């Protein structure tokens, strides 16, 4: 999916209970998880978000539980990319493992405002803020992670290896 859409802003330490509250964890149904995405941080989010939109947050996004339901809900809601100043480690690895694009960028997290139109080109290594006519450079992932990302997730990369 091309990464282009409007930005939704969130603050620091957005935790997995806010991303997908435990009251919805009795299912693995992706559409149901998506319907409650970000509910305890922004009750209207799941209704407002459109395919391609981007979540932009402060530091330590995704802290708390190991629930993969969190990145799954975000991806299933149509969010094309999460940009944050920093990520909590389990959320980070879960996103890499399920193929949800995530980008750590202090500059982008500080500059992007709600509703800005954001475009990301991971191959060329930049985030374009169409609204503000700005560009933020992004760091390349280490080769180890690039292999997983390129395959589309950990399972896909394993399937390739096992084939």
């Amino acid at each position: 999916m091309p990464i282009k859409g409007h930005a939704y802003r969130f603050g620091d330490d957005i935790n997995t209970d806010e991303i997908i509250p435990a009251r919805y964890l009795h299912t693995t149904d992706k559409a149901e998880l998506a319907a409650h995405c970000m509910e305890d941080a922004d009750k209207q989010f799941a209704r407002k978000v459109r395919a391609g939109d981007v979540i932009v947050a402060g530091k330590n996004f995704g802290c708390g539980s190991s629930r993969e339901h969190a990145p799954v809900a975000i991806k299933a809601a149509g969010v094309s990319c999460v940009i944050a100043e920093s990520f909590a480690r389990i959320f980070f690895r879960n996103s890499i493992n399920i193929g949800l694009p995530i980008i750590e960028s202090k500059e982008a997290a500080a500059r992007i405002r709600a509703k800005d139109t954001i475009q990301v080109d991971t191959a060329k290594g930049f985030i374009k803020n169409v609204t503000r006519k700005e560009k933020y450079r992004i760091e390349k992932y280490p080769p180890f992670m690039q292999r997983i990302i390129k395959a589309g997730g950990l399972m896909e990369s394993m399937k390739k290896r096992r084939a």
Partner: protein
Amino acid sequence: MGYTITEKILLKHTKLKDIHPGEFIDAKIDLCLGNDITAPFAIEEFEKLGAKKVFDRNKVVLVPDHFAPAKDMKSANQCKILAKFAKQYGIKNYFEVGRMGVEHALLPEIGLVLPGDLVIGADSHTCTYGALGAFSSGVGSTDLAAAMAEGEVWLRVPESMKFVFFGKLNKWVGGKDLILHTIGDIGVDGARYRAMEFCGEVIESLEMDDRLSMCNMAIEAGGKNGIIAPDKITSRYIRSIKKKARPGLGRAYASDPDAKYCLVKEYDVRTIEPLVACPNLPSNVKPVKALKDVSIDQVVIGSCTNGRISDLRIAAKLLKGKKVKSNVRLIIIPATQKIYLDAVKEGLARIFVEAGGVFSTPTCGPCLGGHMGILAAGERAISTTNRNFTGRMGDPKSEVYLSNPAVAAASAIKGKIAHPDEVI
């Protein structure tokens, strides 16, 4: 340059000759773990992978503990997925209701985790087992699926932080207060991607239950793992386990004197009083004495953090012959069946019930807002659990304060957040 205990354990589980923080490794695992929330996703992925069998049926652990005994039909279905998978693949360590417990209390109790192990679990509090001198870390469901299939996990070798605790512990201060103090000091991302090594004279004389509480909450500072070098207390703990799930005492590693740390913190514990973490972050830590007239509706004593027998003994000491305040609900949840039975044998269960409390079957239940004590809008709880995020125990407009079991029990009696000295 020497290695830290974390680096030594990781190195031992690879084919590498040397290891450095920041490096990516594929490591062999000794155990992998999932529960009724995380394992169903993992099982879906495992089956999509086309794996015919698990890498080792003795090394996969499945515990339905979060929404079990099943709280509703959907949860019952999640639990059923675990039971079916366990049967189909001959999983030896599947723990059915009645034989289960909160996973991170259960595994050490039956000797499933030993010093020197590398354990991953699809549950963030998997870091608990660092108390036994193991490397253990929380991962996601896809990681669990990969581990069940191939017995390996990808890891980035963490930098290590050293926390040295010295002095003499104040009355009513335990492992929970030491870790809350640490999180309050460094923040909820203070140890992000890092290993947290706890040491010093205080840790050396700290009992295993307190060590487990401390390592349990390493994740609340963002840590990859918490770890304490195995010693006499560790081997005594392991030797005391009846019908141990695995033979031997594991392998004890210790950090080299010239090991490299990205940060060393020293804490004089004489300055640490009983603490509470106020809403809505575990780092929002204050001394109990600094809180005035914070009324409560509910008290929860239990969880993988503080649901062990020594926690229940402390709570019983305060509650004996006392009554829970009329407008307060006290919910006590022993973390495992063994702890439940010990609490009955020791007369603790009677003390709790006579005080006006609930004594529940083991479950994670209210800790994550699952069941067995959900908060309504505007309600406030003090709990011995590990997280106080917005809506963690129920309605997004409810509040959770975190404390040790003594403070929680004292608060149940007073109907407001109270210091144990106020009731004894």
